[in-house]
């Protein structure tokens, strides 16, 4: 599904503070599975996840998504791919404060020009599915950690993506909420979605949901191996 070929990512290239975040990464990711990127802080997990999710371009190397070479696509097309193929769950959830849970969930679909009423209905259905329908009209700053996490998941799912990307999703959650998160990921995997998680939390990479662990260190893949 996604093929990375000799990916290298350099920040501040040519400057005294030049930093190589990823070096010579080759990786093939198949559909319908859950993959965890494991490794200590600074090992390049987030950078690799950004590149996989079309959020950042590699300095060199090639990326193909469903047999299509996307490395050199203009920004506009990358945005479209990002919107239609990926659903993102960020470490801090990154919900937009001051607006309601429902509006936050609908946000990624606004540029699709979908009818407002039908979009609202889909968002409500998702919130009900994640058991926070009752909070739809609440402002996001009033939410508990678990509710904010579910809102972030609903937002990631609104455009019905094939791949879910989550960066350190359990970093701010307690054990119970982390387990709950992994249960939701299991259900999504069962529905046929591909899950890509970056984490150094054992609750994530030791979970039965994970099919494959890619281990990283110092910007390189040290093990692209199989299951836990």
């Amino acid at each position: 599904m996604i093929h990375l070929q000799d990916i290298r990512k350099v920040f501040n290239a040519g400057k005294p503070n030049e930093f190589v975040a990823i070096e010579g990464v080759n990786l093939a990711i198949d559909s319908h599975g859950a993959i965890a990127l494991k490794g200590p802080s600074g090992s390049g997990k987030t950078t690799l996840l950004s590149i996989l999710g079309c959020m950042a371009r590699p300095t060199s190397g090639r990326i193909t998504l469903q047999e299509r070479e996307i490395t050199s696509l203009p920004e506009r097309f990358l945005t479209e791919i990002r919107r239609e193929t990926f659903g993102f769950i960020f470490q801090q959830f990154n919900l937009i404060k001051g607006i309601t849970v429902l509006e936050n969930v609908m946000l990624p679909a606004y540029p699709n020009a979908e009818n407002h009423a039908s979009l609202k209905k889909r968002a409500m259905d998702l919130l009900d599915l994640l058991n926070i329908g009752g909070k739809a009209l609440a402002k996001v700053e009033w939410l508990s950690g678990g509710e904010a996490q579910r809102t972030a998941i609903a937002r990631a799912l609104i455009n019905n993506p094939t791949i879910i990307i989550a960066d350190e999703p359990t970093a701010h959650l307690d054990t119970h909420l982390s387990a709950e998160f992994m249960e939701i990921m299991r259900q999504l995997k069962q529905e046929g979605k591909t899950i890509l998680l970056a984490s150094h939390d054992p609750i994530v990479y030791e979970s039965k949901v994970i099919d494959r662990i890619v281990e990283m260190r110092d910007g390189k893949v040290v093990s692209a191996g199989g299951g836990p």
Partner: protein
Amino acid sequence: MKALEKQRNILDFTLSSLGRRKGKNIALVMVYTFVIFLLASVLFFTHSLKKEAALILQDAPAMTVQRLVAGRQDMIPMHYIDSIRQIKGVQSVVPRLWGYYYDALSGANYTLMVNADLNDRAGEIIIGNGVSWRSAPGKRNNQGLQKNDIIPFKTYDGTVLGLKVKGLLPFASELVTADLILVSETDFRKIFAIANDQATDLVLQVRNAKELPTIAAKITQIHPDTRPILRQEILRTYDAVFDWRGGVILMVLAGVFFAFIILAWDKATGLSAEEKREIGILKAIGWETSDILLMKFWEGAAVSLMAFFMGIFLAYLHVFLASSILFAPVLKGWSVLYPHFRLTPYINAYQIATLFFLTVIPYTVATIVPSWRSATIDPDSVMRM
């Protein structure tokens, strides 16, 4: 239809975004509205005054002939009438008698003018509204002078001549008739000591308006001591006077206007860290740079359009219903008699459009530019927040 849905969705988000920074946005809309209100008030007011003056002057004679002695206006001999009437194209020549009268009792200057209708009714006058109010400071119930009240006039030799008010001039013409008193010829000559063979000036009607400059040239040729004044020249003077007054007000308001520019510039160009973060999130979840700019465009347009229409509406109420209470003393009148009148609303679409292009458009653009800079950042920056 799809494009409309997209606009609707983004507009929807923009409006709830504006609601989030309520205090800041309300303050901005208020200052913005105030600036538009001041500018629009001045524009409405000067434009309506000019229009009003032009309407009243349209019945004025096409040409007035005065006599100048050593550069100063003097009485014109009646026998000039015959020679001027001989000029080809002149339809009629009528002598006028008028003059300024200082009333020590009320401390005001009045314009006295002879009216042919009063010629067989010596002892009677018709007065403008300003005169009516000014001459009646001691009247009960705070009323102005009414019919049959008497105004005393001091004649040239110091004797007092009491003239009876027989009517008031129509309210609609108050801009130019506030200080006017119409008298009979006999009374006028009595007050000012003017000989029977003299008049203040002559008014001419001509058959063809295009011949006016030629006729004026011929008059000065026959009588080198005369000065013909055309109606067009009077209109031009009025325009210049009102433009000049409007300019004075605008100069005073320039400070307010610049303060607003600084405020708007600061608000529009400086994106807060929170706003930058939001732009990053929107990009990460799939918004294109153009979608973010569209959102910022709606944001700027919503603020400035709201302020623009509120400002115009308040200015309309201020000028046409509240008689421009804020700056009427500067814009109207030049003597102690301020005309009290309500202007007929005249709005010039060109002026509104100018105001729109000078305020709404720059503000909206100023909102988009900084967002454009933020919207072009890499979406992955949000992964590191």
